């Protein structure tokens, strides 16, 4: 396709050449702005760009490592941040969830798949439930994928901190002075630490372990560890100059704004 109007994005560059680069988000801001302006009056450009963008999406979907890594980070973070929910609530959430923003693409993509496997109309209840579960699942997966996709560079802060700590040359491990197991991997250059709490007895109902970073002017809650902390669910926290220790206290299940009891686990900074 040659350029009918011959308008140029930068000297000597027919503007239509930019469609490919635009779809890959590989144009400079200025060229992108010029091209976007051109799009308004160029229907064939819009079509081509849409096709290229769909193509680029396929390219992205084929990189298997990226989405799972992001999902894992998000799940880890969600686990570390969320107070433990009772199983009933966990099951109820996905059934209520699909309505809100859940994107259409994964939902509609899943529907034909389910229909394809079972071409007959209404079947027994278990099948209906399976189909519903499949759709909910697809929406959940899609929501996570789509939430992750638009901003792959704006990695979640916790994940970025964890990544920084894991590769920091000055990262060093510190053992608890109160408590018997677990450790803190501290990286001053990242202003962050990865905390693995272990060796604490399971708490009775109605109580939770809560992780804190202590500073002279007060405590900052890192999050709830639940009644049975596991070192396989490390917590990531920012650490500022002047912070004195990282500690765990026993709190009511809903957590506290500041520690209400002494440390059962503590690493001095």
């Amino acid at each position, binding site marked *: 396709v040659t350029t009918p109007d011959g308008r140029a994005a*930068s000297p*000597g*560059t*027919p503007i*239509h*050449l*930019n*469609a*490919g*680069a635009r*779809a*890959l988000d*590989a*144009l*400079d801001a200025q060229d992108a702005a010029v091209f976007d302006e051109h799009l308004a009056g160029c229907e064939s450009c819009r*079509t081509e760009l*849409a*096709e*290229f*963008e*769909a*193509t*680029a999406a*396929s*390219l*992205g*979907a*084929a*990189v*298997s490592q990226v*989405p*799972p890594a992001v999902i894992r980070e*998000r*799940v880890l*973070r*969600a*686990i570390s*941040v*969320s107070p433990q*929910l009772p199983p009933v*609530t*966990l*099951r109820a*959430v*996905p059934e209520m*969830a699909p309505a809100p923003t859940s994107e259409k693409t994964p939902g509609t993509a899943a529907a034909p798949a389910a229909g394809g496997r079972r071409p007959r109309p209404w079947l027994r209840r278990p099948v209906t439930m399976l189909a519903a579960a499949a759709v909910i*699942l*697809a929406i*959940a*997966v899609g*929501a*996570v994928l789509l*939430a992750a996709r638009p901003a792959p560079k704006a990695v979640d802060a916790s994940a970025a901190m964890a990544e920084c700590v894991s590769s920091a040359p000055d990262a060093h491990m510190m053992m608890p002075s109160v408590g018997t197991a677990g450790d803190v991997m501290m990286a001053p250059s990242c202003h962050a630490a990865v905390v693995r709490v272990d060796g604490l007895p399971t708490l009775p109902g109605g109580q939770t372990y809560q992780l804190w970073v202590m500073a002279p002017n007060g405590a900052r809650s890192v999050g709830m560890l639940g009644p049975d902390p596991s070192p396989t669910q490390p917590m990531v926290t920012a650490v500022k100059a002047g912070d004195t220790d990282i500690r765990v206290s026993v709190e009511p299940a809903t957590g506290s704004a500041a520690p209400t009891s002494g440390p059962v686990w503590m690493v001095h900074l």
Partner: protein
Amino acid sequence: VQASNERESRVAASSTQRDVDTVIEAVELSLERQAVRRCLAALTDLQRESVTLAYYSGYTVREVAELLAAPLPTVKTRVRDGLIRLRDCLGVIA
């Protein structure tokens, strides 16, 4: 905070179904990945180089042109021609 709690709950909830997710994801991805690999292989070396640098490595076409010491319009052409070929190969309909 409410919204973020809800989102985290949803994320956490989806993780409880991880086994099934992984299977579905793996099947879909492996099919799509095969197609993309096949279609990428069908590009010329120069097209593949420019598309890969611009897409997977995240360079702008200007940076790609500098990296390859090629004229900018040439790189833009390679990217566009490469995408045309990928589009046709993958059977993309917008």
